[in-house]
């Protein structure tokens, strides 16, 4: 389905190709603004816990941080 914001994704958080494509977080902000316009107060909460990254991914991030730090030193 197409909108003025671009093609929609069925998966939460996924950025889809197209000008103005939005992430899940941006859509939540849109929804909160819409609720505010309608005079409804409150926050939109996302259900479910964020998935824990794998050890491999966490190690990669650690090494990347080290590389960035070393890059700044040199």
């Amino acid at each position: 389905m197409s909108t003025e914001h671009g093609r929609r994704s069925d998966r939460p958080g996924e950025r889809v190709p197209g000008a103005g494509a939005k992430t899940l977080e941006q859509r939540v902000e849109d929804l909160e603004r819409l609720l505010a316009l309608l005079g409804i107060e409150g926050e939109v909460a996302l259900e479910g816990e964020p998935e824990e990254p794998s050890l491999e991914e966490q190690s990669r991030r650690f090494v990347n941080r080290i590389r960035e730090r070393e890059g700044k030193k040199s």
Partner: protein
Amino acid sequence: MAEPKHARIVDAILARLAGIVSDAGVTYWYAPNLVAAVHHFEDSYLDQKHDVSYLLMDLDETHAEEATGMRGSAAAEFLLLVAKRFAPPMEQAGGTDTRLRMRIVDRLVRDALRVLLLEPTLGGLTSNVMTDGIIVDRSLVFKGWALAELRFTVPYSYTWTATSGLVEP
């Protein structure tokens, strides 16, 4: 013929880690049940069979010729994962279980540092494992475990000649 120096360095590190004997913190806190060299840190390596694990992974290795010529300097970079099972029934942020988790991580890190620095030349294979410093990441999260990573670099040298090529002492 002797094994490559890098392999001997890995063997030396693993042997030292495997030799840790717990004496309730007087010297070391936790004797490892698993000490292994791994290609990467797979989640499944942490399982219920082992209470304390030390996993060593290779990272980058650099080689350069020293100014004197015919002499090479290498630096082998490693990541060491230290992990102990820790699964309180209900851990709440800021609670006593979290403090205990942090304490266990501190003990694991100190055990690893202590054994690496006990003989920082690894039997003469390197000048000093602390040459490039050791960086510790205590921010790792893995359900049921207290764990941390240590990154360190082991410098070593070798020579070469026109007739025999590379010579590793």
